């Protein structure tokens, strides 16, 4: 049962990506130009991450499941 919540290193790395994108790099993307589809750059950037974050988590989930399957020896 413990393996159900084991976190793989790859998953953790994927989790750091949205933090870099949305938090640590704010000084870089906080500007109006270039506008994207009429939106200021900072707003467009954050909206993009509402879709990219689920992608990262989906990838993390795949890695976690693969890790759990390998540890479980293929059995459930």
């Amino acid at each position, binding site marked *: 049962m413990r393996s159900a*919540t084991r976190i793989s290193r790859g998953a953790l790395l994927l989790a750091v990506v949205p933090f870099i994108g949305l*938090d640590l790099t704010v000084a870089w993307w906080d500007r109006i130009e270039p*506008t994207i589809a*009429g939106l200021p750059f900072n707003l467009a950037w954050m909206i993009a991450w509402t879709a990219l974050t689920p992608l990262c988590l989906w990838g993390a989930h795949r890695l976690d499941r693969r890790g759990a399957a390998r540890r479980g020896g293929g059995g459930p």
Partner: protein
Amino acid sequence: MNAGTVAVATILLIVVGGAAIGVLAGSRRRMDLEQWTVGGRQFGVVLVWLLMAGEFYTTFTFLGACGWAYSRGAPVYYVLAYQPLCCVVVYFLAPRIWELGRDYRAQTLADFFTARFSSEWLGALVALVGIVFLIPYLELQLTGLGFIVEIASAHSVGRVPAMSTAFVLVAVFVYTSGIRGAAWVSVLKDALLLAVVIAVGVAIPERYFGGIGPMFATLARIAPRTLVLPGRTAQLGHAWFATTVLLTAFGAPMWPHLFAANLSAKSADTLRRNAIVMPLYGITIPLVIFVGFAATVVLPGLRDGDLSMLALVGKTYPAWVLGVVGGAGALTAMVPSAVMILSAAALFMKNVVRPLFAPALDDRGVARGARIAVFAVTAIALGFAIHGSSTLVALLLIGYAGVAQFLPGVLLGAFWPRTSKRGVACGLVVGLAIVGGLMLSGRDPYRGVNAGFLGLCANLACVLLVSLATRAPAPPAGARAG
């Protein structure tokens, strides 16, 4: 029928309909403590999603985000940034909380502390701190609901009758259906809110500017500085943004009602899959922000920015639309409030009253007491909302930063066996003292950094150091059983 009557009828229909769903949701189940507080730990992805989205999307997101865009400008973007990151935190933390919660048979945040650190005193401390921060948050929802209904009904319904009616309904469905009721009312709330937000967020910029792009072009010409940090403020710059987003992303899941939502899932993987799709819900927030930005040009000089959404909708649309917005807004207050009331009542009976005053009380007695406490909590929040209180305003300011101080205990408790109860208690007290000291003396942000974030760093350091200095605790009894 005149305009006011149409709006009032629409609001009433929505609010009563929502409450009816809530009562029906639990009417065919036997409500023991486990069923009432955590839905028998049987919720699948859909119900967990409805419950969590219902709790996250409060009146603040609805009126407050619009108000921040109106009166502060770009700093409102922190809401957009913290919500996806919060889901990342939940993805990793929630399955572990769920697993330990199942082993400990935990139904509240304080149960987790009591079981993990084998200390009823620590549990009671956590419960009391949790309640102290929940009450003002609840009062905020009530006040928001009062404003929404008063304005949406064109002042034909006063704040006090609106708040009282809505909250009696909330108390009734919390009493009968517990957490399951809140999850099901969320169906109506989310459907309406989505419709409203998409309608006004797209239509209002279209109507006044000819589209979202032209609206931002106008803003970039007349007020470019509002579109980047620190916006219309002096202090809310990049350091504030980065630290506030971190604090809120890690701190929000520590709200007792959000923590308890994790326990209602039927498996750890349910929570993971929920966390993956949750950020998509946030796509509605930019639309709310658009309305706030539009209002800065169309309706400049409003006294209270939080009312900009309702003012602009009222100026633009016929009465029944305002009624739908009012009804959706009222539900947006009622759903999170339901879970907050439930959490406060359960914390009070199970983690304060039983261990300290009535150790002989069985689970059935706790359940009965907690369900009665629902009406007491509701009455207290209602009393504060009607009479107003400056202490509560101060507590509310501290709210997010305050509950974030539970994080080291939960996070380290979940993943680091050496974490000791003394360490957690010291960290909690130090963190709260720093947060209270800085925020109540008007020093947040402190040198540009979020005060809650500073408290959290000190708290974490305390827990680590004290835990390392004290003897490693024996593993709690529940952990072996799982």
